[in-house]
């Protein structure tokens, strides 16, 4: 008899928990952090962007890790690096800064699950097309 009472209570709690789960908890899947590398060429006065999916509301880090001439030699030219949401024919930035390449993240942003983008653009400092590599770490 006592066991039946406990069972009845368990059914109630389990059903209640199921309800709460459906109405208040977002359905996030567990996603391990991944690093995507966006490599390309930035032309004078140009801009290029890259879209990616964030699965978990963890920080997104963006590192402009390499900026080189076509010969492969590194340069310390500053370019614009931005983080945002794809909109229209571009990436609409919520965070942007002018930076040279480095091995520490230049942009660190907490993002809820969704589609985001990183954009690199010339601020007028380029005298020739440059190759770039941007590391994007996200969950």
């Amino acid at each position, binding site marked *: 008899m006592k066991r039946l009472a406990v069972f009845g209570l368990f059914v109630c709690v389990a059903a209640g928990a199921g309800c709460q789960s459906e109405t208040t908890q977002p359905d996030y899947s567990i996603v391990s952090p991944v690093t995507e590398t966006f*490599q390309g060429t930035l032309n004078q006065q140009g801009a290029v962007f890259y879209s990616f999916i964030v699965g978990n509301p963890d920080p997104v*880090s963006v590192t402009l890790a*390499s900026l080189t001439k076509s010969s492969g*030699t590194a340069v310390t030219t500053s370019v614009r690096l931005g983080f945002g949401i794809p909109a229209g024919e571009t990436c609409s930035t919520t965070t942007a800064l002018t930076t040279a*390449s480095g*091995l*520490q993240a230049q942009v660190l942003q907490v993002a809820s699950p969704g589609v985001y983008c990183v954009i690199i653009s010339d601020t007028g400092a380029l005298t020739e097309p440059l190759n770039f*590599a941007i590391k994007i770490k996200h969950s």
Partner: protein
Amino acid sequence: MSRLRRLLVSGGVIAALLLPVAACDNGPSTTDDTTSPTTPTTSPVTESFSTQLFVGGSASRSFTAVKAGTATVTLVSAGTATTKVGFGLGVPDVLGSGCVFTRSSEAATAGTSFTLPVDAGTYCVRVYDVGALTSTITFSVTIIRP
């Protein structure tokens, strides 16, 4: 089985599961590190990279910073004191050419060094012939990383 015996068996199983994890913690985290005779287990870690550079060739090596800190790569030797080579620090190239540079020099000689703050992650050094070599040389690079 007595309660005490069950407890001992359970303890043994847990210990067996935990032992390999503890062993992992003691060792360096990359396979590259296992071949380096100078790798200590504390940060910063010093690694060596020595090999031959052929005329028109290049050689690269990746390394892993296990935490944020400062990375320094130094071209310790490259042929003679006046031999100039290309040398740089960067990140592995996903398009397959080995290593794309964050800092580099096309006229590096023995003693050329680059130091940068880094996040935890995988980085690389590359040494290459910029067209100055007339014969194969031997070079040595030291990598100090977190």
